[in-house]
């Protein structure tokens, strides 16, 4: 079957990017998913869910769907990797503990508001990406030592911008500030900060994120319907946990690949 051959070639290419043990994990998970997929078909509830998620259950259509998307294959991963280079962050946090502390508070605030409004994981990832890029733009670093409230104002602006890019409904600036914070900013201040952030980031508001790689990996595995959503939900949960974890570690875009390890443990039948 030509499709399997193609997938295999893609996996060979990925070996250059990910260490071999991770590839082993990938094979294992693939087998597991196949079993789980068969299980899903036996379950009436899952079948019903699948029906509402996708327009069709026929194998033929699924194959066609894969075929329709396969034209991305050759260029897409290399395109993501090329763009990712532009997103590499500096090590400034290690030298600026005051900034690191206010950044972590800001990230925690973003995650809380994201959960409050049931925004997508991508909205949270985008908001943190904007905040990090903004904090590391040259002209901002010196100011933040004297004005810790600036980091929080930047967080409000970054979450607002992320919601505008990705969500269908964006709360008002005042309503966005629902979670406890030392500061409450009026609309005018957030408005001006939005412009400042946009200028600092060169209006590049669709960066490569870990979710970009998950998108690619999911389609390579041929996941569809309920299984696709469940897989993505778990990956997103892991990503958000990394954000919220000790130290508020900054994600590189290709950390999407590292999600495989905890996923494997979670799915281990033993």
């Amino acid at each position, binding site marked *: 079957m030509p499709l399997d051959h193609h997938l295999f070639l893609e996996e060979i290419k990925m070996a250059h990017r990910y260490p071999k043990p991770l590839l082993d994990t990938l094979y294992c998970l693939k087998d597991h998913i196949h079993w789980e997929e068969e299980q899903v078909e036996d379950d009436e509830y899952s079948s019903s869910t699948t029906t509402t998620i996708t327009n069709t259950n026929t194998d033929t259509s699924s194959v066609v769907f894969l075929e329709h998307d396969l034209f991305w294959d050759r260029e897409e991963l290399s395109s993501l990797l090329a763009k990712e280079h532009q997103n590499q962050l500096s090590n400034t946090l290690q030298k600026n503990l005051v900034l690191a502390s206010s950044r972590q508070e800001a990230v925690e605030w973003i995650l809380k508001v994201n959960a409050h409004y049931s925004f997508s994981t991508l909205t949270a990832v985008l908001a943190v990406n904007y905040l990090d890029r903004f904090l590391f733009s040259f002209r901002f670093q010196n100011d933040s030592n004297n004005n810790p409230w600036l980091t929080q104002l930047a967080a409000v602006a970054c979450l607002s911008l992320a919601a505008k890019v990705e969500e269908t409904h964006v709360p008002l600036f005042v309503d966005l500030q629902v979670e406890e914070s030392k500061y409450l900013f009026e*609309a005018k201040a957030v408005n001006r900060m939005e412009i400042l952030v946009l200028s600092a980031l060169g209006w590049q508001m669709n960066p490569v994120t870990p979710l970009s790689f998950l998108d690619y990996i999911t389609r390579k595995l041929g996941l569809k319907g309920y299984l696709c959503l469940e897989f993505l939900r778990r990956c997103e949960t892991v990503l958000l946990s990394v954000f919220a974890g000790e130290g508020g570690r900054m994600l590189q875009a290709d950390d999407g690949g590292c999600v495989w390890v905890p996923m494997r443990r979670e799915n281990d039948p033993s």
Partner: protein
Amino acid sequence: MEKPGGGGVLSAKEAFEKLEKVGEGTYGKVYRAREKATGKIVALKKTRLHEDEEGVPPTTLREVSILRMLSRDPHVVRLMDVKQGQNKEGKTVLYLVFEYMDTDLKKFIRSFRQTGQTVPPQTIKSLMYQLCKGVAFCHGHGILHRDLKPHNLLMDPKTMMLKIADLGLARAFTVPIKKYTHEILTLWYRAPEVLLGATHYSMAVDIWSVGCIFAELVTKQALFPGDSELQQLLHIFRLLGTPNEDVWPGVSKLMNWHEYPQWNPQSLSTAVPSLDELGLDLLSQMLKYEPSKRISAKKAMEHAYFDDLDKRHL
């Protein structure tokens, strides 16, 4: 008057001389203007930011961000700069500075309709190839346009170059594509799944629009000129047949599905009589009911209809 932004940086007002208003974009007015420093003609798209309101509009934010990603392709209009300025009342204004294009496909088609001439077949082929190439580039970068129509396709009538513009409704997409609100889209080029209330868009919505534009280039009339959502659907069903679960699995579960008059499909050649066999085949693949069966922009570029087109300069 003190210069906003400090030394060396000209405000938008000082950098450009507005020549004439040429239209209204998705959000704000568009002017033809001359850059004073270089004499270059540009298009200025103006967006006022109300400081007492909610900041940068999502449509402006998406358009600029997406154009920052896409500006390398010759078939997507080039965003040259973003400038802030202030209007007479001191309010902040954003100016998007675009390359200027003399006309758009809507005016181009209208000029042929007025003279009674048909658009030359090789011209149609070249324009369609460029459109497919631009759309393939957008889709290859994870961008849906969602508002493709002749008015948004800018042209240089001397070179017959075509560029996709007005990405204010465009979206970056990931899998699964998130549920979106039902936003206003030009009816005539709207895909049936959107009309029937599907909120999970795919790249196929743009391909449907491309198909409608293709037919319009040939006949100089809109293929499906509905004046309401229901009329739009009925126009489509009269030509392509009323869809059912056999031709479009899942169609009866879409939110806006009702009982409709039952029409049998007609041959596309009845609607586009002067298009050749290869063109009709390509068009039929762009107008498949089931979104996943619709041809992709990249595959469309490889279709035999374009085999005899000289692509060296496209």
